[in-house]
């Protein structure tokens, strides 16, 4: 039978032995897990045992794409990187945009699994069927931008796609990430450190075979139709996001009273205007760019042409840099925030993990827990923007004892320092948080707690909490009350719904920004494009079930690693402290309310309320009997 969409191939690279083999992609994986994150999570569950050292040779680093990756399906260039995470010491994954995912599919592969560890630095070169591990000793030590240049020179083609790590990944910095296309990042969960531990510097790909589409004419019609729906039903977001990209969230969250300020203490920042889209677009942004097949072009390409940072450029600058390196760390210097983002891309650091860790250090310093002696002389008083840049560089290069401390990420660093520093580590399961304050969005805020990869807003990306009208919330999610962001009802239900569809987005490999205000996009697009590309008859129910399946596999992985209900909570700060200032002054998230939502969510997710472990009935219902048996053996079955 002809295969459409999927390439049908898993590439296994044994870095210790320097051997490769390709395996056919199992059909049942395609139909039950779809692709990308779905494939990766199951492979991780099956092949990386509990207790494995995340930075040791027994961990596996998995790169996955979906069946529609590399086609005109909107936003379909994405890929997922999965491994056991050194930040959570449990499940970890990261997702990136750009063009690398498409290139891998055009070369004819769905998934790459890296096993073992190379004895000397190497990079993988994939040129359709030709696969080669090349010596990377001459590029080890280079920043990621230079790495891309050198790899392209080595291979003799400037149009190839290069995923890789910078000095941070090489040094096993926990906040490091995998980069691609210069400025895209598979950012979360320390995947850069895992790649560095395998001495894998880069993966370069050139693909000319392409992706087979079962119904090309129909696909073209569907893609056009749904771009029109996006423009019509989510007009406000489409127009603003195409123009400004995520940096607009500084402005928007300031209005909503949701902008993380001074290490998540406050939710609005007195200098937000200096770091919003106004000044950014007036002086620095020269053009907008896009990921593969995207209708938005949200990425701002900017250059700094004068002053002490003249010569700096970056692309795809995100809110997590313009806000992360400003309001989150209490500094109102836009150029410092932009340079901070550019350095993170060069060094291979995750904006969120990096900014959160620096914010932790700043608050500890201002509370007297860290002294100048601890910070190797850096003055971390709120507002010292230059110190923010110093922190980024020292973290990336593990410079000095303070650099070494920052490189642990805020949870492990907090534990190391003690003396109350842990209270200021705003992490969940060890992973730092991004985006917005949980006290002012009770569903989306709750979701951080149950995200399978730790503190993360993307597992649920429940923007519908402020984008859907109450009528849409009633019709599509089944709870009108969930539309009230300050309420507590219907939240578990909403997060169950969003998490399933987001897992689906991560498996077909689509950007979540395509699915925002219009509920029709959330509920109709995935199965329609899957059907047109693969030629199989997908339904909403099938895709929704796949989303449930993927979430539960990841929860099972975490249960095996010793995580349970106790790990599904927000940092104490959000239960204890009321929002002190601004439009949402007084907002809170009382723990008793959180517990009720958690119970509601567990009920729907099929999780035991006491332990937080997946329940047997639910696992069996979703066709995960092997996982049920494994958990039962280990006494981790709910």
């Amino acid at each position, binding site marked *: 039978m002809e295969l459409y969409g999927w390439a049908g191939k898993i590439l296994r690279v044994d870095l210790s032995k320097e051997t490769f083999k390709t395996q056919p992609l199992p059909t049942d994986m395609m139909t039950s897990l779809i692709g990308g994150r779905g494939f990766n999570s199951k492979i991780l569950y099956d092949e990386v045992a509990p207790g494995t050292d995340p930075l040791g040779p027994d961990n596996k680093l998995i790169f996955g794409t979906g069946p529609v990756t590399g086609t005109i399906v909107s936003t379909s260039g994405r890929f997922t990187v999965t491994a056991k995470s050194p930040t959570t010491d449990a499940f970890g994954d990261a997702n990136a945009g750009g063009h690398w995912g498409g290139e891998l599919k055009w070369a004819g592969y769905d998934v790459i699994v890296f096993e073992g560890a190379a004895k000397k630095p190497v990079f993988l070169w994939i040129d359709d069927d030709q696969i080669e591990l090349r010596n990377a000793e001459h590029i080890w030590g280079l920043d990621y931008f230079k790495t891309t240049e050198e790899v392209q020179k080595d291979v003799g083609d400037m149009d190839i796609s290069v995923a890789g790590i910078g000095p941070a990944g090489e040094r096993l910095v926990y906040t490091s990430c995998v980069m691609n296309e210069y400025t895209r990042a598979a950012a979360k969960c320390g995947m850069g450190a895992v790649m560095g531990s395998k001495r894998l510097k880069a993966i370069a790909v050139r693909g000319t075979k392409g992706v087979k589409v079962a119904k090309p004419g129909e696909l073209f019609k569907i893609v*056009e139709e749904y771009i029109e729906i996006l423009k019509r039903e989510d007009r406000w977001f489409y127009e603003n996001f195409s123009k400004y990209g995520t940096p607009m969230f500084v402005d928007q969250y300031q209005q909503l009273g949701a902008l993380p300020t001074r290490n998540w203490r406050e939710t609005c920042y007195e200098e937000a205007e200096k770091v919003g889209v106004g000044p950014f677009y007036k002086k620095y942004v020269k053009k907008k760019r896009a990921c*593969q097949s995207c209708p938005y*072009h949200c990425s701002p390409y900017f250059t700094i042409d004068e002053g002490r940072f003249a010569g700096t450029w970056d692309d795809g600058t995100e809110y997590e840099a313009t806000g992360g390196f400003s309001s989150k760390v209490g500094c109102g210097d836009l150029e410092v925030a932009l340079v901070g983002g550019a350095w993170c891309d060069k060094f291979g650091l995750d904006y969120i993990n990096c900014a959160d860790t620096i914010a932790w250090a700043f608050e500890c310093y201002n509370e007297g827990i860290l002294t100048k002696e601890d910070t190797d002389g850096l003055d971390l008083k709120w507002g010292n923007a230059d110190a923010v840049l110093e922190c980024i560089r020292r973290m990336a290069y593990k410079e000095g004892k303070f650099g070494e401390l920052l490189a642990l990420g805020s949870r492990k660093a907090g534990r190391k320092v003690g003396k109350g520093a842990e209270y200021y580590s705003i992490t969940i399961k060890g992973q730092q948080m991004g985006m917005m304050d949980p006290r002012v969005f009770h569903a989306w805020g709750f979701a951080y707690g149950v995200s399978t990869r730790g503190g993360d807003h993307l597992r649920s990306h429940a923007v519908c909490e402020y984008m859907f009208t109450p009528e849409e919330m009633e019709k599509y999610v089944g709870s009108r009350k969930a539309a009230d962001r300050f309420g507590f009802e219907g939240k578990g239900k909403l997060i169950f719904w969003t998490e399933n569809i987001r897992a689906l987005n991560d498996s077909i490999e689509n950007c979540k920004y395509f699915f925002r205000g219009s509920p029709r996009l959330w509920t109709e697009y995935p199965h329609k494009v899957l059907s047109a590309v693969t030629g199989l008859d997908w339904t909403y129910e099938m895709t929704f079930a796949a989303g449930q399946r993927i979430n539960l596999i990841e929860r099972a992985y975490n249960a095996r690693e010793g995580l349970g209900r106790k790990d599904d909570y927000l940092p104490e700060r959000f239960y204890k402290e009321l929002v002190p200032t601004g439009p949402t002054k007084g907002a809170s998230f009382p723990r008793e309310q959180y517990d009720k939502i958690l119970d509601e969510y567990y009920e729907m997710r099929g999780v035991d309320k006491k332990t937080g472990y997946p329940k047997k009935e639910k696992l069996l219902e979703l066709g995960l009997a092997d996982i049920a048996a494994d958990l039962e053996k280990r006494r981790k079955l709910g």
Partner: protein
Amino acid sequence: MKQRAKSFKDADDPYRSGERMGHFIGIAYDKCCGCKLCELSCSMLRSGKGISSPALSRIRVLRREPQGLDIPMVCLHCEDPPCMVCPADAMSQDQRGVVMINDDKCIGCKQCLLACPFGAISFNPEKGKVFKCDLCNGAPLCVRICNVAHPADKVLTYQKPEMFEKSIRTRAFERIANSVMQSRVELASKVKG
């Protein structure tokens, strides 16, 4: 479909005889965002096999992150096409000026590919023949999908001779006009201040 003479000197003047050449795809090089919807639509619907692959696309977008450049490159249907060097008579040009390859006649020598100053001709190793943009018989798919996805940017437009000078001149005028109006505002504020 008329066959264009190999040398312009040898031909009857097409404009005098009432023919209108000059159809092509206009490109706003500063506006392309590098999304490749054009490449993937073209390859999927025109390569004959429903395969989504830039290597099979007649339009290619070259991207350079450090400079923030995304440059669509496609056949410009030259008035005096160098690719007419074809020894097998496989290259011809119609009344609209659209330069086309006759697959049956192509021998895969690649002379046209080498002659094109824009790299607009590609080689399909499986078929052993060259391929290039043929303007999709008057309704280019790349133009269509680009304008659906990015309507505000007008990156790709189907140009006919009576339109193209005007549209480029109009765009340049808009840039200059904005700058003139901006200078008035700045001048006014300086005078007041």
